[in-house]
């Protein structure tokens, strides 16, 4: 996977996984994506705060479930039972950590050209800029590329229960 990433860096194109939240198309680099699962009921972690409220079992590993909707300032999803769970690896303090988050649906993997990436217009975007890397167009539709570094960083908003 690492080499994969390297070649992407040099070839200036990358592969993206597109998923939807409230009808909007979002994307993350496919490089670190492990698997797509049917949603599972997460074990709630008491006093964990809204960003990483639960844990699931992904083939023997305990994986934190991230509430990406909360971070992007979206309303809570209708139901946990719909949609798909994306499991991917994210380095935290240099050690890869498996994470999962829920999307309404997972669409496809597309190839994109880094040079075609645009700034997300400040106006009209409801999501905090810090979590956005840019936007690309896929068949005329705007796809928001998430900045995984910040989007999945252990939160400052985690309630250090006190």
């Amino acid at each position: 996977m690492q080499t994969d990433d390297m070649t992407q860096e040099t070839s200036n194109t990358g592969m993206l996984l597109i998923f939807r939240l409230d009808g909007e198309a979002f994307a993350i680099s496919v490089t670190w994506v492990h698997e797509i699962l049917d949603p599972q009921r997460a074990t709630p972690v008491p006093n964990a705060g809204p960003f990483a409220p639960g844990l699931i079992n992904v083939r023997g590993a305990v994986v934190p479930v991230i509430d990406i909707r909360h971070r992007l300032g979206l309303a809570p999803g209708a139901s946990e039972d719909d949609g798909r769970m994306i499991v991917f690896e994210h380095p935290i303090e240099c050690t890869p950590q498996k994470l999962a988050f829920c999307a309404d649906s997972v669409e496809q993997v597309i190839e994109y050209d880094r040079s075609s990436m645009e700034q997300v217009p400040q106006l009209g975007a409801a999501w905090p800029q810090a979590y956005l890397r840019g936007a690309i167009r896929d068949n005329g539709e705007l796809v928001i590329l998430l900045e995984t570094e910040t989007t999945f960083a252990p939160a400052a908003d985690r309630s250090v229960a006190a």
Partner: protein
Amino acid sequence: MIEQATEAFVLEARELLAELEDSFLELEDDVTSARIDEIFRALHTVKGSGSMFGYTALSRFTHHFENAYDLVRDGALQVERDLIDLSLAARDLMVSFLDLGGDGPEAEALLVSPEVSAIVERLSNLTGTSEESIEAPGKVEADAGETAAPAPTGVQTFLIRFTPAQDALRNGMRPDLLMRELADLGKIQVSLDVSAVPRLTELDPTEAVLGWIVELETAEGREAVEDVFIFADDADLSITEMTPEISVEETLATEPPATDSAEPAVAQVPAAAAPAPSQAAAQPKPEPKAKLPTAAKSESIRVTSSRLDDMMDALGELVIAQARLEAVSEEISDPTLETVVEDVQRLVMGLRDATLSIRMLPIESVFGKFRRVVRDLSADLGKDIRLITEGGETEIDKNVIDRISEPLVHMIRNSVDHGLETAEDRQAQGKTPQGSLWLSACQEGGEILVSIEDNGKGLDAEAIRARAIERELIDPEAELSEQDLHHLIFEPGFSTAKVVSSVSGRGVGMDAVKTTIDALGGSIHVLSRAGQGTRITLRLPVTMAIIDGLRVRLGESVYVIPLSAVEECVEMDEAESKRDSGRSLLQIRDEMVPYLELDALFGQTAKPDAGRRVVVVRVDGMRAGLVVDDILGQSQTVIKGLSAYHKDIPGLGGATILGDGRVALIIDVATLIRWAETRRDQGPRKAA
């Protein structure tokens, strides 16, 4: 392959260096020839294999060191404190060389650094050798060796036939380095014996098929030549000295000439000597034999700890899978299946115990390092302190060992710095001038007790109280027992500024110690008498990978409470919880036990069903009840650490996977109760 062998060398060298440190410290107390031999062998091994595995700078430095111990071995040099100091310093430099990861500009730079030069000079002064002889390894050895071999004067010519064992290259042997070492000894002429080389199609490049025939002109003597090959002991090797007039061809055809007077046997065995090429190498001269690393000390193999971790992970998965199997079997309830499940369970438990036992290490491995800490520290502080260790053979999980070493160092520093007095102060109080520090370990059930005891001045309860009030850790009105006051030293923010010294006040106080011990699921107990000393006892779990856990239900969630903390389970007296007096005490027999309602602490909506249970746990010597909805049973629990997202949440010690595949959280009783206390204190403030 080479990397692997190098890795093995580094591993071995590190072990040897750790042992060396111990040996030097022991040597200080008790000089025995066995110990000196051991030191010499260790140095020799590092030197020898160092040059084979690309650590020649280390090897060259070690050479000086080895010379000194050669003299010690011969009784030409006395073991004195000076030598021990020097040895410890030199050993530390060897570690530095090892840390640099082999030869390179950095290692070269270190070799000529003032630090190293100073040590080398002191070593040379001891051995009375000049720089030149140091640059020529072997000579000093030959001179000082007890073999009574007449020191070879002048130049000798050796014929060396060297055929490595077939798998030698795979084991990391580097013939090129050996040849280079030979070249360092004198003038060499190398020819290759290619008779064993197969056809190209059959050639396995990882196999050693070449033979080397070397004619070496050297003034270093036979031993220096043998030393080059000391680690190639499975190779076919013959070293014969040639009288100048005999050419290579002739020597090969006839028996080796008898010029080495130390080994007349070679000469007297006609013909047989030549076809038995390992003759010379196998000459059981007492010295080289003693120098060879005793490979078969015990029947053990070297395994990197990461492999053990992998094995432990796999075992964890197996335990989880087995729990799942059990759950399924219960559902199906088929007698045949149940028998199989029982068998599997038994086997898994056996495997678990075996695996855990592999990971157990004697705690001596950390104790050893403290001898040095105490020695250096007491010297720095001008105190006379003796460290006495007991129960070093007590075995404890490697992970636990790795993590307690830091807190132990901290506590020892504290004892040496604050606890034990100077010789004058001690004498003024009628104590022995030498302070003592005991470090002991023993096993008690599923726990290991490690205690650090000093016969110093003890903790000053009143000073602690004053300080705790100053730091607003306790209410000025609070009435605390002496015991409670002593435990305040573990409060965050207690140890700072005023008592900071260069030794122990480095910003991390005893609270860091407590945090680590808590994280390990252990506890700390302090006992101190003013003027007499302090004993701090750590209770630690033997292992932390798999524990026995009690599964409890709280609403729809299942939690696991480590069984080691559980004392008993009782019914919840609901009349008690309906009380609104704010009191949360439970009468168990004739004792009042405070209790915590987990659902409230965990922010779950309380559904006070009848028949709730109380799990009574013991933390820091105190009993407390945890109210849960139900108790589900007891099971093996594989602890999985929490991620960065959750690891700071108080009261949670990890997660595990249940038989039905769900994730359950493991309760860390100690942090839970402490956190609950601070929460309560932040409410209506009242004295504890």
